[in-house]
């Protein structure tokens, strides 16, 4: 344990001071690790290994998994498109009431996702402020559609992206941008040619976090988009429903979700660690 934590910190930011590890830090750290890892171990131990393959080949599982991956990816794309400019606005532009704006951006982080789902219904539902207009003008209704799932996921996941990109922007050396500006580059050119490459690792980190959050999204999705196989039943919803009658199936589904996210997070680990 000691060696792994040493090498981990060495990667992050140079050699640490030598000397005995202070137990005041080590004991809670190990407790924290156990607290996070033990429930996962519980899932692995209680998993119905003999019937695992057979359960995994059920079409409903693949359907839910595909839907989850597709919607989380689209939601992340939406978040990138809207969230990066928002983060830039918060980090680089002197807005009046910026503190309030920043607080508002983080609201979905603390809002119970189910409430987020209800809020989305009240705005984008058939009788919602915007939704009724969408229906009468374009015949578009968002609840109970895959687009609705993407919206619910983007709503809860975007703050993760905005916060990490804003952090990266604040940490980035602004002298490069100033230099570019004095050489005559417009603000858009500076953003595109200097800022974006500079904070790319932060954007990747934010996108990964955002994707992971979207993949696990449950409350807003089930409230706003409903629960129907193939269109809106993502993995977390399938897990919840399976728990009603078949806890073993729920464990299998969770393991799949876990495996997918571990593989993807691990494959992005280097950038992730550098950015953090």
């Amino acid at each position, binding site marked *: 344990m000691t060696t792994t934590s040493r090498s981990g910190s060495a990667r992050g930011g140079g050699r640490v001071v030598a000397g005995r590890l202070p137990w005041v830090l080590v004991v809670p750290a190990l407790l924290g690790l156990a607290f996070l890892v033990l429930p996962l171990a519980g899932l692995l131990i209680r998993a119905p290994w003999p019937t695992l393959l057979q359960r995994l080949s059920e079409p409903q599982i693949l359907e839910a998994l595909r839907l989850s991956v597709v919607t989380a990816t689209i939601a992340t794309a939406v978040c990138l498109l809207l969230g990066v400019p928002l983060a830039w606005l918060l980090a680089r532009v002197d807005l009046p009431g910026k503190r309030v704006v920043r607080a508002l951006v983080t609201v979905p982080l603390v809002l119970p996702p189910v409430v987020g789902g209800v809020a989305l*219904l*009240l705005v984008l*539902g*058939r*009788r919602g402020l915007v939704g009724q207009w969408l229906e009468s003008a374009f015949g578009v209704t968002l*609840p*109970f559609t895959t687009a609705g799932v993407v919206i619910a996921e983007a709503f809860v996941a975007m703050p993760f992206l905005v916060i990490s990109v804003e952090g990266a922007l604040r940490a980035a050396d602004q002298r490069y941008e100033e230099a570019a500006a004095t050489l005559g580059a417009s603000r858009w050119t500076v953003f595109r040619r200097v800022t974006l490459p500079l904070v790319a690792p932060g954007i990747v980190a934010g996108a990964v976090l955002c994707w992971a959050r979207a993949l696990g999204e449950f409350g807003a999705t*089930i409230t706003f988009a*409903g*629960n*129907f*196989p193939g269109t*809106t*039943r993502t993995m977390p919803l399938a897990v*919840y*429903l*399976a*728990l*009603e*009658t078949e*806890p073993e199936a729920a464990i299998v589904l969770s393991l799949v979700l876990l495996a997918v996210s571990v593989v993807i997070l691990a494959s992005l680990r280097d950038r992730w660690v550098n950015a953090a």
Partner: protein
Amino acid sequence: MRRVLLTVLAAALALAGCGAEASGGGKVTVFAAASLTESFTRLGAEFEAAHPGTAVTFNFGSSATLAQQIVQGAPADVFAAASPATMRTVTDASLAGAPVTFARNKLEIAVPAGNPAKVRTPADLAAPGVKVALCAEQVPCGVAAAQALKAAGVRVTPVTLEQDVKATLTKVRLGEVDAALVYRTDVLAAAGEVRGIPFPEADRAVNDYPIAVLDDAPAGDLAKQFVQLVRSPQGKDVLAEAGFEAP
């Protein structure tokens, strides 16, 4: 640093002490089907009034979820389910003895006020463009809905399969769907926002509601007294008012 730690520790101990004191009085924990929300909340208040110092806490949800929670060791005293099948999950695990049926419930078609899709019969639920919410077949109201629709000879493609009857009702309340199959009791509970349409085939899918005291009920006799209240004439009145039928 040390002083901060000590303060935190002292505060934690004080809080723990308070918690222990508060749980000194009588406490009954009732796990009940979502459809019992209104009637049991009322009965709980009446029970507390009749037994000063006791507190009745409820965990309302889909009977299937509650049954799983009890099997996994949730500290319940009483379980009231919306179907014998979900009760069986608990009795099969030898956690409760002989449950008794205390009420019955029937489905109705619920439509939002104004009935925008002009739904009148189960057959209308299958019409193109009519958005229908049903309970998932994993929970009692979903089983009943499937039976009733089968009896009516109607094939419905819902837009969503909700995880309990209150969630299904919410979709009608908000006007997000044109119709849903929920219990008569839920229609009554949402009177004003939702209109109920009875249909004859619902008689083929009547749900029996069993109730049982769990063998390891921490509340002991208090739990039995709560079940007695539910089955008393007083309890029957409350249930009948909510729209339940006597068994």
